[in-house]
């Protein structure tokens, strides 16, 4: 076959085309000076959310003619970080972006975000000191704030009181009253209810034997940590973690207090007695459904504790309108607008973290529930584990924990195996 010519022709065409695209370099569209067009990537396509965001944006533009437009780009929740990364890689980064807590260290430490404290502090009426230090910790690096933690959702336990009563069990409220609301009793109640009702006992929502970071709502009670504070050493092999995971394993396979792997039960459809989840899920409860209660996480051997999920908004450093974007963010999250956003996203502002303010926008929850779970949770909570390179770590931990979800697993050996897998990554 005489292929020489054909091949050479193809090669020439390729080189030419490559040269064409190689020119031009990266860089973002539009230059400085002209009116700014701001774009914020968000993962909520919810109409109520977007309506509120647009109202705030419209108000801002009235007083800021230098900003021509502000758009909110809803990306699919499932593929949020991927899509955002692709846009950044392709040179089309947004000006502002929502960031999940699990990718916070990646975004904060990579230098992709612009520091915000200066702009926020100098903005009139912003009351920067009002931000609860517990909520900003994750989003700081070297004393600078790189993203505003607009959403702080603590974990609590939703209880199907009807199901518990039917099974003749004491409700968490009664256990709290007698000072006995701890994991031992919680699992006992869940196991007994599951056995009597034929439904599931306690469900750690979104865990499903894959999303292991949701287990921090459990092992934090034992004083265990996925990794050390400085992120350098693995915590899975610690005696605390072994104790916590042994208790969990027993709860799943011996007491059947938690549904086993591969079994899903939806609390909000009435299929489970209790569920550990973020309080924002209260909206899933039906008006005419079962009787329910919301209580704080049970105490662990190390006493009471709270766990928190977060989301932040950052300004992309490479944006040609980084200054305008930061200024808009300061407006978006000032005390007035924070109060408006509080109806969907529990705010980081101490002044707004009262049962009274939150009650106005969360009509399904009682003041006492809000105080105990939300206000105390945000003030004292530990944020779910996160680390730079989280996705890779998380994947390794998930794969490493898989052998644990067998009835006769050797807990200590499995956990040591997890550490062997992730220690090289942590040490990086």
């Amino acid at each position: 076959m005489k292929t020489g010519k054909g091949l050479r022709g193809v090669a020439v065409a390729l080189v030419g085309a490559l040269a064409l695209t190689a020119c031009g370099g990266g860089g973002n569209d539009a230059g400085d000076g002209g009116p700014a067009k701001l774009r914020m990537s968000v993962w909520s396509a919810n109409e109520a959310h977007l309506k509120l965001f647009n109202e705030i944006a419209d108000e801002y533009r009235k007083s800021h003619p230098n900003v021509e437009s502000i758009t909110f780009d809803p990306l699919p929740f499932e593929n949020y970080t991927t899509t955002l990364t692709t846009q950044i890689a392709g040179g089309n980064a947004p000006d502002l972006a929502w960031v999940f807590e699990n990718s916070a260290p990646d975004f904060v430490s990579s230098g992709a975000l612009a520091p915000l404290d200066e702009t926020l502090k100098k903005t009139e009426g912003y009351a920067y000191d009002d931000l609860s230090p517990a909520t900003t910790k994750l989003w700081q690096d070297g004393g600078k704030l790189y993203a505003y933690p607009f959403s702080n959702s603590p974990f609590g336990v939703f209880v199907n009181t009807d199901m518990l009563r039917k099974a003749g069990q004491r409700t968490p409220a009664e256990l709290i009253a007698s000072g006995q609301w701890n994991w031992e009793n919680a699992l006992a109640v869940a196991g007994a209810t599951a056995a009597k009702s034929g439904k599931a006992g306690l469900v750690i929502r979104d865990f499903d034997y894959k999303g292991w970071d949701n287990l921090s709502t459990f092992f934090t009670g034992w004083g265990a940590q996925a990794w050390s504070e400085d992120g350098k050493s693995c915590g899975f092999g610690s005696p605390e973690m072994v104790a916590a995971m042994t208790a969990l394993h027993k709860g799943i396979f011996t007491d059947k207090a938690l549904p086993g792997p591969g079994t899903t039960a939806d609390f909000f459809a009435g299929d489970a007695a209790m569920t550990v989840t973020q309080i924002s899920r209260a909206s899933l409860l039906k008006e005419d459904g079962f009787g329910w209660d919301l209580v704080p996480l049970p105490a662990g051997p190390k006493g009471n504790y709270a766990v928190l999920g977060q989301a932040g908004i950052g300004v992309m450093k490479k944006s040609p309108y980084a200054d305008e974007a930061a200024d808009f963010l300061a407006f978006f999250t000032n005390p007035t607008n924070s109060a408006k956003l509080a109806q969907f996203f529990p705010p980081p502002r101490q002044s707004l973290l009262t049962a009274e303010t939150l009650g106005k926008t969360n009509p399904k929850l009682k003041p006492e529930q809000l105080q105990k779970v939300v206000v105390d949770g945000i003030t004292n909570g530990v944020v779910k584990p996160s680390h730079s390179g989280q996705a890779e770590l998380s994947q390794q931990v998930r794969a490493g924990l898989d052998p644990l979800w067998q009835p006769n697993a050797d807990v200590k050996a499995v956990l040591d195996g997890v550490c062997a897998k992730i220690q090289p990554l942590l040490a990086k």
Partner: protein
Amino acid sequence: MSRDLSPRTKLVLYGVLMVLAIPFVFPTWWMVTSSLKPVADIFSFPPQLWPTDPRLEAYQRVFELQPFGRQYLNSVYIALVVTVGTLAVAALAGYAFARIRFRGQNVLFLVVLAGLLIPSEVTIVPLFQMFFKLGLIDTHWPLVLVPIFGAPSVLATFIMRQFFIALPGELEEAARVDGLGRFATFWKIALPLSRPALGAVAIFTFLHSWNLYLEPIVFLSSPEKFTLPQALTQFVDAYGGPMWNVQLAAASMTALPVLAVFVIAQKQFVEGLAHTGLKG
């Protein structure tokens, strides 16, 4: 294989087909019926085969929450343009690769075939960079150009080539004796004969464009430009959780019309072969 069967064989055949059909039908059935259920009933166990309290509310919400009509139109017109474009490109190339001898044919075919071998996850970043430099982000151009000329049309070319190869040479010989040129032979003889292949390609191509997911979410950002698979991801509640009944209603509306078109078109293209002169 169209011989008459005994009633007994027929009965067995029906039984086998019915059992085989269950795993194909049940998920779709569940999707459609669940779109009529209130959210809490969707994941109830054991699954409800029929909604106890059917309601069309979710279908109404689909149109309230998103410019769904507009998005539907986007998907339809993009898929049609892609299908017509692909048919043109692929019929020409497939015919040439199968029936014309030219130098470097095999190498060129392998170059084209490479397009079939690359998953879109691999090329999405460079493609994004290219279209970004051309200023075509958040337009429908990438969703039209890439399928017509890139990987998806390669499959079409491949299918066309395989069909044209099986075409009896005598027909073309006769055309040439009648004084028809190459293009006329292609246009008047080969193309009409390849109707079933074109039908198959049209269905493949349309569905591919219709179900495209990764490309729209990467290239498009304005809701009124979204396509359907992308729109499906947008029906979420205040906490990012999917609104299942609304999503499933939208998914049902996405699937059922295409299914209807298939029912109408399939006779044409599957059975068309019997009348093409290929027999004997």
